[in-house]
């Protein structure tokens, strides 16, 4: 038996595969979210230094992790699309960008809400905050470039170039910001946690990260399906789908 490795590289077959996978990932995302939130709110103990306010880490940390991870995934698929000219890869890359930007924004926003009661300030120019902000800018750049180009083929390729340039730059930016911060030595607060975290806190955070991961998969699959429909709207299979011939 020969396996056709590229079967699902075709947007049409991926559309149905994604449709079949969606319910499972949705169920996983909801379950993990409920379990994670339950642990976060009821099981995890109150922090003796930070009180109840620390509980925002159950959103904040997963959001920050996902925003960084998704950028790499986005650049990877955009690069695959550029190198092998596979349309689906580029569609997935453009589907990832809004979710990544949303998580970067969420990380910044919840960070500000956390910072206010803890440090007494909404914002410090800490290295991590600054690089998260720059990551957010990179997402915005990718999305605005794609939005400005009408021809989807050119948009895919141009987006891929800027995503790859961004991925090369992310470590450089991260280290330069870190060095800049130590030079300025302005921030008196550091984000370094107390040495040991309670197990319940850690497990709550990890489960919430998995939930965020599953959520991203669900949203990205839905968005990819929509992009497929939009771009393939003139093809035969989409019109068959519209008439209810295909299921």
């Amino acid at each position, binding site marked *: 038996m020969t396996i056709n490795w590229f079967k699902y590289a075709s947007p049409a077959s991926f559309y149905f595969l994604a449709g079949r996978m969606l319910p499972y990932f949705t169920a996983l995302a909801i379950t993990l979210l409920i379990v994670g939130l339950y642990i976060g709110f009821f099981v995890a103990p109150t922090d003796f230094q930070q009180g109840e306010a620390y509980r925002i880490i159950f959103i904040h940390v997963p959001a920050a992790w996902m925003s960084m991870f998704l950028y790499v995934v986005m650049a990877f698929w955009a690069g695959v699309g550029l190198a092998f000219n596979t349309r689906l890869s580029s569609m997935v890359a453009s589907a990832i960008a809004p979710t990544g930007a949303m998580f970067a924004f969420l990380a910044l926003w919840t960070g500000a809400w956390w910072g206010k009661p803890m440090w007494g300030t909404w914002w410090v120019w800490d290295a991590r905050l600054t690089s998260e902000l*720059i990551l957010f*800018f*990179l997402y*915005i*750049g990718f999305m*605005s*470039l794609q939005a*400005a*180009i009408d021809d989807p*083929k*050119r948009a895919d*390729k*141009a987006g891929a*170039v*800027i995503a*790859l*340039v*961004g991925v*090369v*730059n992310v470590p*450089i*930016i991260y280290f*330069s*910001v870190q*060095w*800049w911060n130590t*030079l300025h030595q302005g921030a008196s607060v550091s984000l370094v946690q107390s040495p040991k975290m309670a197990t319940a806190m850690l497990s709550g955070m990890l489960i919430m990260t998995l939930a965020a991961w599953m959520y991203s998969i669900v949203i990205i699959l839905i968005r990819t399906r929509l992009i497929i429909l939009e771009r393939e709207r003139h093809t035969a299979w989409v019109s068959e789908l519209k008439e209810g011939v295909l299921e």
Partner: protein
Amino acid sequence: MIWWIVKRDLLLAMRRRSDVLTTLFFFIIVVSLFPLGVGPEPSILRTMASGVVWVAALLASMLSLGRMFSSDYADGTLEQMLLSPVSLAALVTGKAISHWLVTGVPLVLMAPVLGIQYDLAGDALLVLTLSLLLGTPVLSLIGAIGAALTLGLRGGGVLVSILVLPLYIPVLIFGTGAVEASSAGMEFGAHFSILGALLLVSIVFSPWATAASLRISMS
């Protein structure tokens, strides 16, 4: 081949001198606005000087990116360049070099004068100028990628700023860092080394990425 492009672009720039001068005056005006905004206190100005001059240089270099390819694109020269058997990366390197000569070098030459406005001492002035000398070519090289990607798009000017400015951040940090280190009496050689490293890395990668972007934009 690179030199042929540089010579041609310089000749074109000299025929339209006002373009060059506009960028330079933009730089001077932006730098001169800050004291009006924050007050003429010399100690504040001295601490701000490197940051203000560098940010103004970033903006001036970015604003002139649109001209790097657009006139060649409009009159079809760029298409001929793409069709020519010569390596496109080399042509693009020439473009970036001439962009730097036309916009970067005047900024570098002007920087000491503006530094004096900000009450910088002799050493800091020298370091500021040298850091700009090393850093502005990086701006032209990175900017070339953005200029190539946004070629012929609506709202290209604003778009290029969103694409390019985040990538300029390391240059800004180490450029201003060198000046601050020198005015604090610390060693600033490391900053120059990193600026030099950024320059080398961008010389290697940027023409290649720019050439790829041009092919995407022109296809």
